[in-house]
C-alpha cells in the first residue's frame, strides 16, 4: 500500500507533510488534481524537482475556484511570480492555508493579502471598493458602495489612518467567528 508511489522521493513527501496540513494520501491526491489540469505539462516523476508552472487560466478553471470572485487574487498571492502561474509547491501551499486545519492567524494573514489589490500592505478605500464590487458583481450603486466602504473603515480602523493595516484586519477578524468556516475550501 504505502511505499509504492514513484512520484516523490520519501524525503520530499516528508517535507510536504511537515510544511502543509496534509497527510501523504492527501498530498498524492492533490498532485493528481494538479496533474489533471494539464497532463502533458506535468511529469509523473517529481523526484528531480522539475520546474513546471501551470498558467493562471488552468488554475482558475478548477471547480473549486471557478465561481470564486477572488480567484485571481488568490492565485496571485500564492504564486511565486505574482502573476497567478502556480508550481506544485504553490498549489499545495494554497490549499493548505485554505484547509480546515489552518489556524485563524494564518488565514487572516493571507486573507489580508488577497484583499489588498494594490499590494501596498494596506487595505485602502480603493481596495475596499474593488472588494465590494466583486462581492456584489457591481450591482450596488456607487453611492451605496462608497457608504459601505466608509462604514467598514469606521468600524475596523483602530489607529485612525484612513486605511486598514494587518493589525486592524486581524483585530476585526477575531470578532468574526464565521471567518474560519467561510475562508475554507474543501478539496
Amino acid at each position, binding site marked *: 500500500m504505502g511505499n509504492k508511489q514513484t512520484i516523490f522521493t520519501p524525503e520530499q513527501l516528508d517535507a510536504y507533510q511537515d510544511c502543509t496540513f496534509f497527510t501523504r494520501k492527501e498530498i498524492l491526491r492533490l498532485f493528481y488534481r494538479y496533474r489533471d489540469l494539464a497532463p502533458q505539462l506535468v511529469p509523473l516523476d517529481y523526484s528531480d524537482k522539475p520546474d513546471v508552472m501551470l498558467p493562471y487560466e488552468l488554475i482558475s478553471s478548477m471547480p473549486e475556484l471557478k*465561481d470564486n470572485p477572488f480567484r485571481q487574487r488568490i492565485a496571485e498571492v500564492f504564486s511565486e511570480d505574482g502573476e497567478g502561474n502556480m508550481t506544485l509547491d504553490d498549489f499545495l501551499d494554497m490549499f493548505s492555508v485554505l484547509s480546515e486545519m489552518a489556524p485563524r492567524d494564518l488565514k487572516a494573514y493571507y486573507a489580508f493579502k488577497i484583499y489588498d489589490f494594490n499590494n501596498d500592505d494596506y487595505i485602502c478605500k480603493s481596495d475596499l471598493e474593488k472588494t465590494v464590487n466583486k462581492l456584489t458583481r457591481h450591482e450596488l450603486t456607487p453611492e451605496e458602495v462608497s457608504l459601505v466602504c466608509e462604514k467598514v473603515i469606521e468600524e475596523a480602523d483602530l489607529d485612525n489612518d484612513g486605511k486598514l493595516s494587518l*493589525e486592524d484586519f486581524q483585530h476585526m477578524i477575531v470578532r468574526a467567528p464565521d471567518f474560519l468556516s467561510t475562508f475554507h475550501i474543501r478539496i
Partner: protein
Amino acid sequence: MDRHWEEETGSKWAAGTWGHQPPSALFHQLPSNATLRFRGDKALAWGAVLGEWAPQGIPQAWGSEGSKEEVAADMETIALQQLPLCMAEKRRHRLQAQKQAGQHTRWQQWQAGQQRLRRKVGSILLHTQLWRSSLTCIEGHFGTGIEAYFNFLRFLVLLNLVGALLIGGFVVAPSITFEALRLNQTERANLTANSPCMGYDPNPRGLVSYFTYVMDLLSGTGFMELTYLFYGYYQNSVVDVVGFSYNISLAYLLAVLCYFLLCLAWIVHRSVHLLKRGLVSEDGALSTYSIKVFAGWDFGLTQPPAAIWKHNSIRYELKLDLEEEASRRAMAQRSPAQRAWLYTLRSLINLLVVALLGVAFYCIYLATEYSQSTLSQQSVAQSKSKAFWELLVSYLPSIVITGANLVVPMAFGVLVRLEQYPFSQEIKLTLVRSVFLRLASLVVLLVSLWMQITCHGQTEAFDCRTCGYNHRHFPCWETRVGQEMYKLLVFDLLTMLLVTLLVEFPRKILVSHGPALLARLWGQQEFLVPANVLDLVYGQTVCWVGASFCPLLPLLNTLKYILLFYLKKLTLFSNCRPGDRTFRASSSNFFFLLVLLLGLAISWVPALYSIFALPPSQACGPFRAEPSMWNAALLAIDGLPELARGFFYFVGSLGFIVPLLLLLCIFLFYLMALADSYSRLVKELKMQLQLEGRDKVFLVNQITELS
C-alpha cells in the same frame, strides 16, 4: 537596511489614501510597517530576514520579541505548517531545524514526536465523523448556515444514541436477560393483593382484531403496554446470582438520573466550545459591515447557482443594512407624540400576543382533559370507526399542540410587522415568541396531566384518598405519561413526513411546471433554519420528558432523527432554494444549544418531581411498593458501610447545601465583576491605540520637517 526596498515601494503609495499628506519615507522604516513581506524576488523574503538578522523582520502579529536565540526558539515551537512562508523557505527552515534536532535532548525529541502524533490523531478523527460527505455536499451547495442545522441534527443523533445505550445497558438489557434466564427474582416487599390500588390489567380481552393491533401500535396501549417500552412492565425485584446482586429499581433510578446528567454535561461542554468562538466580541454590532465584506464570501461554494445566490444574498444584506441604518436615523427623529403612539401600539400588541398564547394553552388543557377522561373508560372497540375515533381522541393533545404551533407563529409574523421594529430585531422577537410557545405548550400538557393524576394537587379529594393518586382513571400513571410522550413523538414524525410529501413536493412541481405567475407569487420553498431547529428541540424535549417513564424512548428518538436527516436532505436538494438572508452559523449554533438547554431544564422538572414528590403506582413498575421513587436510593444508602452512609447523609443535609449555594453565588458575582472590568479595559485600550496612532503620525511628520 530597508532603503532599497523603500525606493522600490515608495512609488506605490496612491495619492490621497492617507489623510491629508502623503506619508513620509520614514514610515517605511518603522518596525510595525515591516509586518508584511512580498513573496518572490521583489523584496526580502522572511526566511532570509530570519536567517540573517534582526527581530524586526518578524511581524508583530506573531508577537515574538527579544533576542535572536529566543526568536529562533519561538519559531521552532510554532508548527512549521503555520508559518506564512512560501514553500521553499519552509523547506529551508525545516532542514535547519533538522540539523539542530540532532542536538536536542531526548525530552524535546519526544515532545516533537508527541506533537506529530497528536496532529495525526486529530486528522484521523476529523475524517471518521458520521455523515461527513453529506455535510460537505450540503455546505458546498447551500452554505454554512444550513449546514449548521444538519450539524446540530447529527449531534442530537449521537446524544440520543449514547443515552439509549446507557439506559438500555443498565435497565432494559438486565431485565431481558434475567427474564430469559428465568433467574430467581425476589420481590422487594409484600403487597396486599386486594387493595383497590392494585386494579391494573392492560391485557386485551376477547378477540383482538387486526386493526386493534395497528391502533395499539400507534397509541402505545394494549399489547404495547406489556413490553419493555413502558415503565409499567418492569419488576420491583432484586436478582441474587452467585454473590452478584442486581437491584432493578435502583438501577432504573440511577440510569435515568445519569442520563440527564450526561446530556447536561455534553451540551454544556459543546456550548462552551462554541461560545469561545461565538461570543468573543462584547458587542457584535460593532463590526457588522466589515464582517460581511471580509468574511461574507463562502470560499467553499462550488456550484454556479449557489455562487449566484451568494452574490445576491450579500447584496441583499448590505442593502438591508443600509436601509435599516437610514430608517433608524429617521426613527430617532420622531416627535414625542409619535413615540407615545408607538409605545401604546406596542403594548397593545403584546397584550394581544399574550391573549393568543392564553387561548392556545387553554385549548391544549381542554384537549388533554377530554382525551384522558375518555381513554380512562376502557372498552374494547368493536368496529373500525369506533377504533378510529378512539385513536383520534387519544391523539387529540398532539393534534392541538401541532395546530397551535402552526397557526400562532403566523399570527406573530403579522403582528410583529405592525410594531415597526428594525428588521433584525423583528426576527429575534418572533423567534423568542415561537420558542416560548413551543416549550410552554408542552409544559401545559404536562401540567394538565399532573392535575388529573393528583386530583388538582389535593390528596384528600375523593378519588385520590386511598392511593395518593387517581387510581381509578390512572391505575398505572407513569405508563400513561410515557404513552402521551410516545404519541407526541410518533405524531411529530408523521407530521414531518406528511408536510414533506403533501406540501413541499407538490409546491416544487407546481412552481416549476405550472404558470409563471404562480412561480413569481409563491416561489420555491426556502429552507428556514430557525423553524426547523425549533422542531428538533421540541422533539428532543419530548424525548427527555418521556425518558423516565419510557426507557426505550431515546432509542426511538435516535431512529426518528436518523430518518429525519435523510428526509430533510432529500427535501433540501429537491425542493429548496437557499435563503435570501445568510444565516449566521456561529452565533446561531450557540443559540440552538441555549434553547436545547432550556428544553433540558424544562424536562428536569417533571422527572425530579415524580422521583421525589409523587407516589409511584402500586400496581405496576419497579417502584410499586415504595412510598416514593427516591426511597429505593435511600434504602440502598442505608445498606452501605458506616463511613459512606455518613458521607451521603452529610452531603444531603442543609448544613452542606446552604454554604455551597452561598459560595456559588459569591463566585458568580466575582465572575460578573471580572467580565465587566475586562470590557472596560478593552474600551480604554482601544482609545489608547487611537491616540498612539495619532502620536506616531505627528512625531514622524515632525521628524521629517526637522530633518
